[in-house]
């Protein structure tokens, strides 16, 4: 596995670039062979299991998340099939409840968040101009935890132990009395797996963004996509502990007889709802803020100019994240909380529309008179505007503590949440996948098939979800496995089910396009002539990302490199895994840090932690056993790798 040799000839601008004489870096030329030996992943099974390369791990996250997307999609398809006509007996209520719970759980925990994390792990180091994430072994560990958590959930589902209390698992329905068996234990523990993984990604990316940016990339030069990931990762750190705490308490109530959620023992059901939605609402922003970042990444390449209003864009992202923690109660307007408190959350739910509105206005200003090139990635961005703005509008209606009483827990909400999540995250994600596919794989996607994917997704999506607004107003509650013929909900449901077929067709076209790309020509390093750093290296990037770490002097380093107007860091060690650590604010170099290489210990620790987590579903004793089992891998993980060298630092340009 040495992508460098394969693609280097196809790169029109091989590193180091043709710099003007005044900026030509001093010092010895980079020894690409030594860099590859230092940063490459060994071949074979050992290499695959031990790799700590952020690009390989990022691709694994993306691929795994897309597999879960397909599984969640199949579940959605079965739901639509069941609801396509009244009193269908295709699925019995037990299976239906498992399937809709699996659909929500898969899409939220196993697809949407991990796929964004995967894109972050792959692209953040490239966009900030470094060679790996800050904690490479932890990164590998995080992926394994995510994978094992997902497999655990689907293993349970295959054994008829899929969770059946909804992705929100309200107590007491999810408690020991009304959900006996291990279905909900598996669900709770899956949360622990995936949220642990999310916290790990958050820590890595925050440290990478703050400390490992290329020299000169001061705060005001960070690409907007990286800002979006930074904001998202901070949200993960604040939001995920709430749901891990909640699911841990649920597991304790279920397995060891604690009474956190039992009102007759001074527990409270609303405690669960508060903990869950304190995570659950920010979760929505955790999913779609990366989407906003992707839009800011894609638009400049096609509008051929910078995004307008960079400070406003950054402040909007931060404001959205901040306010995102102040509106969880709008999921609970029907539980009977005091009206004054509800009004506060209504105000917060209304005003959070403002920062997103400002971003939309800034994008419109960017596109104003730009005559954007209409390529497949851009087609998804246009769809985003239509779908997401509509979803935002219905969001205002749901944020109203009065009107929500009619709309809450109906198909209107199903329509709304798909408009914001598919509109705000999946359309931008597909746009980003079409945009970055050449960079990640070194292969090109077919243009016509890309347009077909976008068109089918847009038509199918609206056909599926628009009628659901009307169904909600006509009294159709969510999460029903069937409905009576007399309700008159049949025709609109049938229409929605037809839309689901079109969405499936769109995903299949994308799949065919991706598979077919193996036969197509190698991608250029910079097919879109974009402004960010990742386009200045080969497609796919070599294991060390950049032959020399670039020096950033503007917000558009990609265009600077194209003009040859860029400096590079010299005298970095080629024979060690060395990265440059810079000051968080102004990006001035501080020191060099040596990162660890491939290791099997992350996998070993992931296996022992998995034993502990899965075992504790059956007996709390396994927690103790697991703790003991974890000792050897932790010792191995921290075993010293030898003395590190810290020679002085020199920089050119």
């Amino acid at each position, binding site marked *: 596995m040495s992508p460098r040799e394969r693609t280097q000839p196809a790169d029109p601008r091989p590193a180091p670039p043709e710099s003007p004489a005044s900026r030509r870096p001093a010092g010895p030329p980079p020894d690409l062979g030594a860099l590859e030996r230092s940063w490459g992943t060994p071949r074979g099974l050992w290499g695959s299991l031990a790799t700590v390369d952020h690009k390989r791990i990022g691709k694994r996250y993306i691929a795994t998340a897309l597999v879960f997307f397909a599984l969640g999609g199949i579940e959605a398809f079965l739901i639509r099939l069941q609801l396509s006509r009244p009193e269908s007996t295709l699925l019995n209520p037990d299976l239906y409840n498992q399937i809709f719970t699996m659909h929500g759980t898969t899409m939220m925990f196993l697809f949407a968040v991990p796929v964004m994390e995967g894109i972050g792990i792959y692209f953040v180091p490239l966009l900030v101009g470094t060679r790996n994430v800050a904690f490479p072994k932890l990164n590998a560990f995080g992926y394994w935890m995510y994978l094992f958590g997902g497999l655990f959930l689907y293993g349970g589902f295959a054994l008829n132990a899929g969770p059946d209390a909804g992705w929100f698992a*309200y107590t007491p329905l999810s408690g020991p009395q009304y959900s006996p068996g291990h279905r909900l234990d598996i669900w709770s523990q899956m949360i622990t797996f995936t949220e642990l993984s999310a916290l790990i990604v958050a820590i890595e990316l925050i440290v990478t963004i703050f400390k490992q940016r290329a020299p000169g990339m001061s705060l005001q030069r960070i690409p907007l996509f990286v800002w979006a990931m930074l904001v998202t990762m901070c949200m993960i750190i604040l939001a995920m502990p709430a749901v891990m705490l909640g699911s841990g308490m649920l597991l304790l109530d279920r397995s060891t007889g604690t009474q956190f959620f039992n009102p007759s023992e001074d527990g*409270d059901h609303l405690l669960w709802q508060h903990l869950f939605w304190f995570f659950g609402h920010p979760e929505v922003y955790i999913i779609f803020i990366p989407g906003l970042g992707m839009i800011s990444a894609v638009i400049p390449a096609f509008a051929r100019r910078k995004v307008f209003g960079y400070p406003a864009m950054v402040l909007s992202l931060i404001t959205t994240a901040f306010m995102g923690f102040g509106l969880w109660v709008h999921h609970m307007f029907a539980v009977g909380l005091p009206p004054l408190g509800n009004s506060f959350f209504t105000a917060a739910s209304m005003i959070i529309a403002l920062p997103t509105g400002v971003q939309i206005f800034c994008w419109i200003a960017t596109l104003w*008179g730009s005559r954007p090139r209409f390529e497949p990635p851009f087609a998804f961005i246009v769809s985003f505007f*239509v779908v997401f703005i509509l979803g935002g*509008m219905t969001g205002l209606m749901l944020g109203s503590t*009065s009107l929500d009483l009619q709309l809450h827990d109906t198909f209107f909400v199903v329509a709304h949440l798909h408009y914001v999540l598919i509109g705000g995250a999946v359309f931008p994600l597909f746009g980003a996948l079409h945009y970055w596919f050449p960079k990640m794989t070194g292969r090109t996607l077919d243009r016509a098939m890309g347009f077909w994917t976008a068109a089918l997704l847009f038509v199918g999506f609206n056909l599926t979800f628009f009628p659901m607004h009307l169904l909600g107003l006509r009294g159709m509650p969510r999460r029903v496995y069937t409905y009576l013929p007399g309700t008159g909900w049949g025709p609109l449901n049938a229409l929605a089910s037809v839309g689901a077929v079109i969405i499936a067709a769109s995903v299949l076209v994308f799949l065919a396009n991706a598979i077919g790309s193996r036969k197509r020509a190698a991608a250029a390093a910079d097919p879109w002539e974009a402004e960010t750093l990742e386009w200045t290296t080969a497609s796919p990037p070599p294991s060390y990302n950049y032959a020399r770490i670039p020096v950033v002097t503007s917000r558009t380093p990609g265009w600077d490199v194209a003009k040859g107007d860029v400096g590079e860091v010299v005298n970095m060690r080629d024979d060690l895994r060395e990265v440059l650590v810079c000051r968080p604010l102004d990006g001035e170099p501080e020191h060099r840090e040596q990162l660890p290489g491939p290791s099997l210990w992350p996998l070993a620790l992931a296996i022992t932690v998995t034993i502990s987590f899965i075992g504790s579903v059956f007996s709390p004793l396994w927690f103790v056993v697991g703790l003991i089992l974890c000792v050897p891998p932790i010792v191995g993980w921290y075993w010293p790798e030898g003395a590190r060298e810290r020679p002085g630092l020199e920089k050119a340009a």
Partner: protein
Amino acid sequence: MIGALALLGPVLPGGVPTPSALRPAAPQAAGLESLWWFMLWTCTAVFLVVLAVLAYAMLRPRTEEPPARRAAEIITAAAAVSVVILFAFLIATMATSRKNPNEPRPTDRIVQIIGHQWWWEVHYPGARPDELVISANEIHLPAGRDVVLDLTSADVIHSFWAPNLHGKRDLIPGRHNFFRLRPENVGTYRGQCAEFCGYQHAHMGFIVFVESPDKFEEYLASQRKPAAEPVSADASRGRQVFLTNPCVTCHTIRGTGASGTNAPDLTHLASRRTIAAATVDNTAGHLGGWIADSQGVKPGNHMPPHLVSSEDLLALVAYLRSLS
């Protein structure tokens, strides 16, 4: 009348029209409906304007970047307009919410509703404890009078929702939620549980009968009476079948020894239009089918199957049909 409606197409059990949040029959639902139209038209206008501007921005011939200062001014103005609209929504919301206070006053008629998996227990407290009326799944309310529903649950969380009358309010075990209704128009309205509550969440319906106050008092008076004595031999045998089978462990028929409280009170079962939480019409056929194979009608419900001979079943149905 039910037969005539059947010719027009399928109708809901009990001959009840389909629910709709946009056909209000009470001031509460009417207030929410006006708020809906206000927000819908405003949002539609904003949606169309933003998309039109976006389309124009992209379709114009390519020019230099717009001057930053001018663009910033326009964006600020657009943000200011957004804030005004958002505040209008907030004020409209709070005004609507203020019009619908839920706390009961001493003069209010209280109706208690207790959620069960998957049916609704309805209590109409009287002036004296022995005037309490207990029924299930069909709620009678006087037109033009304020009623405060006292909502709680016996098991998991449910949510009470009759879209034509008001929004929804949760039934939470260990809590009492009050919910004020003032149904104005005489008629029947369908509602359904709106919080996921397990296997038969889909079939946890109810019917609200809004009647003139006189008819409502008549209803309560008739419901206060103990169960009718069987008049036919069949019905007498049916009562014997009921009392000698496990039916009595869950169901109550006042005036007999049956006093279980896990399942709907059957004292006046024949006065109800539907059975199984407004899932099927209350006919002899459905009743027999329910007793013999309730799991076939609502899979997963808590009524176990009962092995009774066909003669016993017919007698039992005859008895239950006599409980008007």
